[in-house]
């Protein structure tokens, strides 16, 4: 039977190499509406973070004779309590979150992968001890662990990145461990062991490439959580210090002015946060379903 005579799906499966699979995955991805919307939103904020300062006014320039101005032609989103342009602060405010959230997630993913690989591969006592610590960590809400870490290390963007990276580590480790447990009993691992490969080689060269799919999904899902947590912690005053534009901090600095009717000082930053988290989560779920399909 020639390949052409088979139904389309089996033909693809038979002739699919790694490159074909990747192409198939990308094709599945771009055919999803959720992916295109998510990518557009994220792309918009990335552009805003890089080129925003060229387009908008100076986000730091105070004008004390024009404070709390409602949206108008000269200030599309109005001005805040110090007379700064809200539009500029919202656009440039994407900078800090688009640096901190991916870096924190990356740290968490790398550490979590190492820990999860060790737990799943070695099992036994390593797994038990690390598992207990993971449990203890998970008994605390993300925000509370974040607060403890920041109190211990001092508030700054660097601390925020490190703390969230560490908090994510056990969560990602748990997912990686589960994936490794499935892989470790497969023939290719046994074959590598028989060849006399070292544990490190088997873990990182043999097993790791085969668990990349769940790790990728985990990364994108966690990225959404990172944005969520960083905005929350910045709102509480644990992030980048003023006057640098920062969505979470700008909301908390101006929320007191809401009772006076100055809604524009908080609403636009809140909407910016909402678009970014929803965009990232749409990307995450479309990547997950495209990986499931291929």
């Amino acid at each position: 039977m020639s390949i052409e005579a088979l139904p389309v799906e089996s033909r693809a499966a038979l002739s699919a190499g790694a490159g074909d699979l990747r192409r198939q995955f990308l094709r599945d991805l771009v055919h999803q509406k959720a992916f295109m919307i998510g990518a557009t939103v994220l792309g918009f904020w990335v552009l805003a973070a890089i080129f925003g300062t060229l387009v908008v006014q100076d986000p730091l320039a105070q004008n004390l004779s024009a404070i709390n101005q409602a949206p108008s032609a000269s200030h599309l989103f109005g001005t805040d309590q110090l007379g700064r342009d809200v539009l500029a602060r919202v656009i440039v405010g994407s900078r800090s979150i688009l640096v901190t959230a991916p870096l924190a997630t990356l740290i968490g993913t790398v550490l979590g992968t190492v820990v999860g690989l060790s737990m799943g591969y070695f099992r036994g006592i390593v797994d038990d001890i690390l598992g207990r610590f993971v449990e203890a960590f998970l008994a605390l809400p993300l925000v509370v662990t974040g607060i403890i870490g920041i109190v211990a290390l001092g508030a700054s963007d660097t601390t925020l990145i490190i703390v969230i990276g560490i908090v994510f580590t056990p969560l990602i480790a748990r997912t990686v461990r589960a994936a490794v447990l499935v892989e470790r009993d497969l023939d290719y691992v046994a074959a590598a062991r028989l060849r006399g490969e070292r544990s490190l080689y088997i873990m990182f060269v043999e097993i790791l490439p085969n668990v990349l799919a769940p790790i990728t999904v985990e990364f994108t899902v966690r990225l959404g959580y990172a944005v969520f947590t960083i905005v929350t912690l910045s709102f509480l005053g644990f992030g980048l210090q003023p006057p640098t534009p920062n969505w979470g901090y700008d909301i908390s600095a101006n929320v007191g002015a809401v009772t006076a009717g100055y809604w524009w000082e908080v609403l636009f930053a809140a909407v910016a946060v909402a678009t970014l988290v929803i965009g990232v989560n749409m990307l995450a779920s479309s990547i997950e379903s495209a990986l499931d399909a291929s």
Partner: protein
Amino acid sequence: MAGFVLKRLGLGLITLWLLSLLVFFAGQVLPGDPARAILGPLAAPSAVAALARQLGTNQPVIDQYGTWVGHLLTGNLGTSYQYQAPIAPLLGKALGNSLELALVAFVMVVPIGILGGVIAALNVGRRVDRVISVFGLSATVIPEVVSGIVLILVFGLWLNVLPIQAAWPPGAGLGTQIYHLIMPAIPLALILFGYIQQMARAGTVEALASDYARTATLKGLPRGVMIRRHILRNSLLPTITVIATQTGYLIGGLVLVETLFHYQGIGTLIYNAATSKDFPMLEAGVLVIGAAYMVATLAADMLYTLLNPRLRLRGVE
């Protein structure tokens, strides 16, 4: 059942102990000298040393940990740096307030979440299902800061129907208290809605596809009775577990919501302790949260076993 509970309690205690280690070392060791942290960089060394003696932080770390755990075990949570008062009554009051807020949120979200999930499941793949599911997913991922701000603007400022501050006037009755808690409870309820709705939907879809559901339909049971008697009982089991595991999230959400709406609960207590470097208060608060989470998950597991005849019987055998 007894063996299961004992084992879970034992594991829970080990986890709590690890948590106490983590919390203690984050609070006492990492910031360096607590006395210096409290008094600031400009304080005289003699004043710092005196405060360190008073706080006991000049003792070796192991001794400090021993004293702290010893006190904890006798129910003495220590003295707050910030208020110069015993922690236990402050913590108890805050916990009570938070519980009230959390209850309002749960009372709002559990019936609506389950209803949403079941309606979505009965309409799998149709527009109703898609709308409910997309709304649930979006509600779950949006930070409470955002939903809280939008609520404040819409209901507090523009429509002016709900109070912006959660704190009610002194001596207010239960009705007024709940009225003040509606707006702070909604951001928590929105996040929980997605989780509960998804679990209820998945459970119902699975139950609908089961043999017993088909049998019930084929023997001529009206659809309403079939759903009530056969589907809901099975589909709601996993939902109970989700509700309990979300207590952990809920407490984290309280930190933000209570700060945003100026409400004196466990969340603001931890937040204030953290910002004013009140380490004993912070440590006690965090441990209480950990313990609450563990009790909630244990209770959920037991409830799950009790409600599920299959597991209940296996426990007896």
